[in-house]
């Protein structure tokens, strides 16, 4: 086991508000971990404790095998890209990148070569003399990441540095961060509220809400096997249906939703009969069809509904359909091939089909 970061039972409060509640997580050397959650969920607090800007109230933080609670920030081998970048405005790009090398007493004659190397890595060759305000947003990002990496830190921290960029540049920089991280093999912890970014960039994802880690796992695992309603809802576009259990098992349950009884997946824990459950299904797992279509063998569940909303998103159409059979619940779904399918108008009656393995059932109030 080659753990680069280990966080054991870490808690932190600010003025009686508990920002992080007994967080545990560990990260292998070379992995890219993203902590994702809505704003105020404690993800940034956790990151700042790792960086050494805040001290945990209780618990242990180990980086590269050493406990760091008593190590001040400037003695930790951690590079960080800040949310607003925090480039030194009175230093050129090259001086910014050289700053950690000077402060960490690298041999003086090796510094210019290292600066050149990292300028090249972030594709800023020849722009070293520019000052931060003379660079574009994307170029400033690149300087910030070069500054965080030039001294070969044990750990790289990213504090939502991409949140201020426009969407196109953000997508470009996400791939760029991932490329650089893989090229150097540096262990990285990224913090974001953007679930898409978490899925794209990471080896591991941690979902946080209200100071508590909800689930940790790989992006695929997180997407396919959410452990509670919060995770199911946060990652992807998800419809929520409230129901009552009428037939129970370890891996599947029968749930009465409105007038209909449907089969849903349970996540291993047996749920008692008559217990309230929240069911979740992802928008891309529901197929929209003409009202008189034959569902056939493709889907084992089908309901009728009325289209209440249609949003054209270019590469897909998002429909909101009200299903009377399910007690008037609203189902959200995508049509990924709107060019060759029928486009259904609002108030049209349609048939919806899905498979019971894609419908998750969670005991109500499982959000930790």
């Amino acid at each position, binding site marked *: 086991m080659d753990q680069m970061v280990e966080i054991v039972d870490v808690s932190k409060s600010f003025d009686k508000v508990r920002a992080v509640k007994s967080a545990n997580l560990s990260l292998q050397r070379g992995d890219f971990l993203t902590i994702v959650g809505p704003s105020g969920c404690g993800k940034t607090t956790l990151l700042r404790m790792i960086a050494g800007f805040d001290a945990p109230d209780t618990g242990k933080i180990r980086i590269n095998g050493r406990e760091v609670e008593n190590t001040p*920030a400037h003695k930790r081998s951690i590079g960080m890209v800040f949310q607003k970048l925090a480039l*030194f405005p009175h230093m050129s790009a090259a001086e910014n990148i050289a*700053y950690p090398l000077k*402060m960490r007493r690298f041999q003086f004659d090796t510094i210019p070569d290292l600066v050149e190397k990292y300028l090249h890595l972030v594709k800023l060759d020849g722009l070293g003399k520019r000052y931060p305000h003379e660079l574009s947003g994307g170029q400033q990002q690149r300087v910030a990441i070069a500054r*965080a990496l030039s001294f070969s830190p044990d750990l790289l921290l990213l504090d939502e540095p991409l949140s201020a960029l426009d969407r196109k540049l953000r997508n470009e920089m996400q791939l760029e961060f991932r490329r650089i991280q893989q090229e150097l093999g540096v262990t990285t912890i990224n913090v974001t509220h953007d679930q898409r970014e978490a899925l794209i960039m990471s080896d591991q994802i941690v979902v946080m809400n209200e100071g508590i880690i909800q689930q940790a796992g790989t992006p695929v695992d997180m997407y396919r096997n959410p452990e509670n309603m919060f995770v199911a809802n946060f990652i992807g576009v998800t419809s929520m249906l409230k129901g009552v259990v009428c037939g129970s098992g370890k891996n599947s349950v029968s749930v009465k939703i409105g007038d209909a009884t449907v089969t849903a997946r349970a996540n291993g824990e047996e749920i008692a009969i008559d217990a309230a459950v929240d069911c979740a299904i992802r928008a891309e797992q529901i197929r929209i069809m003409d009202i008189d279509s034959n569902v056939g063998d493709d889907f084992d569940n089908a309901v009728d509904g009325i289209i209440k909303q249609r949003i054209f998103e270019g590469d897909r159409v998002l429909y909101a359909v009200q299903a009377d059979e399910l007690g008037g619940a609203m189902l959200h779904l995508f049509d990924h091939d709107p060019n060759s399918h029928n486009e259904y108008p609002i108030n049209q009656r349609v048939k919806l089909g899905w498979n019971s393995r894609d419908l998750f059932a969670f005991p109500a109030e499982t959000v930790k």
Partner: protein
Amino acid sequence: MRGPVSKKLILWSLVWFSIITMSLPTIIIIGASFTSGEMIQFPPEGFSLRWYQRLWQLDDFQQALLRTFYVSVICTIIAIPVGTLAAIATVRYRMRFQKTIQVYLLLPFTVPLVVSGISMMLFFGEIRILGQLWPVGVALCIINIPFMIWSVSASVNSLDPELENAAYNCGAPPVQAFLTVTLPAVMPGVITGSLLMFILAFNEFLVSLFLTDSRTVTLPVQIYNSVRSVITPDLAAVSVLYIVFALLAIWLLDRLVGLEIFLRSK
């Protein structure tokens, strides 16, 4: 079309009225200083530099000018570290009695200059430094320090609070981080404040009046003394000297802070 035209007319009239009323005294004094007559008058009688020449030859004025420089330099040299550190500390760091300290540091503003002057005269007399020149610089620094603190505070307020964290993260110990990152980033405020302190000390009259005697008299007090006896055009020449000096300071400010202007951009 009448609306915009009359609006323009009113606005421009106001602008020109303001410009003229504000600059008229300056123009008159400049004009008067070049007179070749014996009296301050406008328009001047002929053109000559004789009053400037006389000013230069006057031993009193030269001495007073030098003393004023000396006092202003002392005032500025003390104000730079005191004002800068006070501003950074009260704006940036959380500490006990923060508000109280902020108010305390701005107190010199609320005390009438006459009161400051008399109390400092008594105090300096008590500790037996009255009659020397350097305490005048210290006194001017004390009464004007709020300007320095305000000027630096403005810079500290626009400073990204994460900059220091970024420096720690780069491996800089706290003192290094302060010297290499925080201080350069608030430099525009320090420069503005220092020039302001210098000019204010250079012009200060009331407190200097209490603290100086015939051996340590500074230029503004000297002018006052001359006016009381007889008004001659060499006073106009001194005033022009002051105006030139103020313009010089503004030019210097523009050059220095202009060069540093990028510090304010992200």
